[in-house]
């Protein structure tokens, strides 16, 4: 079982990341790179929680983001829930205590999330959407490193579900 405090830290990370993103998200862009701090926190925190908690965290992030003016509310919620679940499932198979894994998973998770979003809400400008998604994935991947290093300090030592003896 995941420890209770791990889940609490995961919630704090996702909600805190979302709030910071709402306040300063527009400054987290350099050229075409644009990072979504709330989503990055979801991906990194998802490394330390299970699939169901990841899905619930993703749905919660989707509700928060959709409440602030997305015109594709349902697609946002579903894509975040799917991405949170996906990283939670992988958490059961991957060695999570690695910055490389966190960065790679965030990059791939962003692309998966955007793909899920596109499947739910097809966009007419496919090229622009694909390019934007790629740059967002790059931005999120870069931001994942400091977020991972910060979250690992508070979450990793509280997670005791990995049975290395098996």
């Amino acid at each position: 079982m995941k420890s209770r405090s791990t889940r609490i830290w995961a919630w704090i990370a996702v909600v805190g990341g979302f709030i910071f993103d709402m306040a300063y998200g527009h400054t987290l862009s350099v050229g075409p790179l644009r990072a979504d701090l709330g989503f990055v926190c979801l991906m990194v925190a998802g490394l330390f929680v299970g699939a169901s908690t990841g899905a619930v965290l993703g749905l919660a992030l989707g509700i928060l983001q959709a409440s602030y003016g997305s015109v594709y509310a349902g697609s946002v919620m579903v894509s975040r829930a799917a991405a949170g679940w996906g990283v939670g499932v992988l958490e059961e198979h991957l060695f999570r205590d690695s910055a490389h894994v966190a960065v790679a998973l965030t990059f791939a998770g962003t692309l998966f999330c955007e793909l899920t979003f596109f499947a739910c809400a097809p966009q007419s400008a496919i090229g622009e959407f694909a390019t934007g998604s790629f740059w967002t994935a790059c931005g999120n991947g870069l931001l994942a490193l400091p977020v991972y290093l910060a979250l690992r300090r508070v979450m990793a030592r509280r997670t005791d579900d990995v049975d290395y003896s098996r």
Partner: protein
Amino acid sequence: MLLTDTHRPRNRYFGVVICVAIGIGLGIWFGASRSTGRSSPLAAAVRSATQPAVMGARAVGTWMRRQTSWVVRARQLEAENQRLRAHVGRLEGEIAGLHEADAAASRLRAQIGFALTPLPRRLAADVVALHPSPYCDSVTLNRGASDGIRAGMVVCAPQGVLGRVFEVAPGTCGVLLLTDSRCAIGSVIQRADSRVTGVCRGTGAKSLSMVYVDHDADVRVGDAVVSSGMGEALGIFPKGLPIGRVTRVGDDMSGAAKVIDVAPAAAYDRIEEAYILL
């Protein structure tokens, strides 16, 4: 390194199925509410709950920037101050002249029977969240239905038009910016010997595109573009609001029409306060 999966597959999929079902249901609910121009009660409650934290975080950042920016910009400030004083002096002279011209125009319009359009009242609002969604170009303001805001109202920054209110909650409202590809505004070249009309559309990027302009229209780089007050289908933007300046003039692929790039007058990535036209 691979670890043994200790969870049963049924449990693993159960969570995501429930979450996706909830997401679809909430999405339909949010969409139905938004089509009436109002936020769903859940979205309004989430915004009300998180707004103090978001605005608090913004206030901390603004305070820190103000405390530190003068150190960085100390050398520039004196030169900037002198330049601005000279600029204010010029503007005061221009305003006095414009008041005279406005009074004369109003008098003449009244004499020949034109209806005089009163200036709309303005309500100041702070930005709660700037570009909150990657899928639509919008801002969230801290004014809502309790302040008399309704969907469709026009929102301006001191420099020019920002966009239109597209959803309203009791204490906040969402504004679709002109740069969003779903937004358009009837526009006209302000230069007296041009007065070419068209439609400024968002491109999804930081610039606008003025379309429906004849290929032989008199448009030059640097021309100011203002709202034309026309186009009921595009929403009612009052006439004469600054939109931006022409940065590029070219022909479209068919050669039958001009393609005009317009740089917005308002800085869409640095909006701190806005005015809602009531």
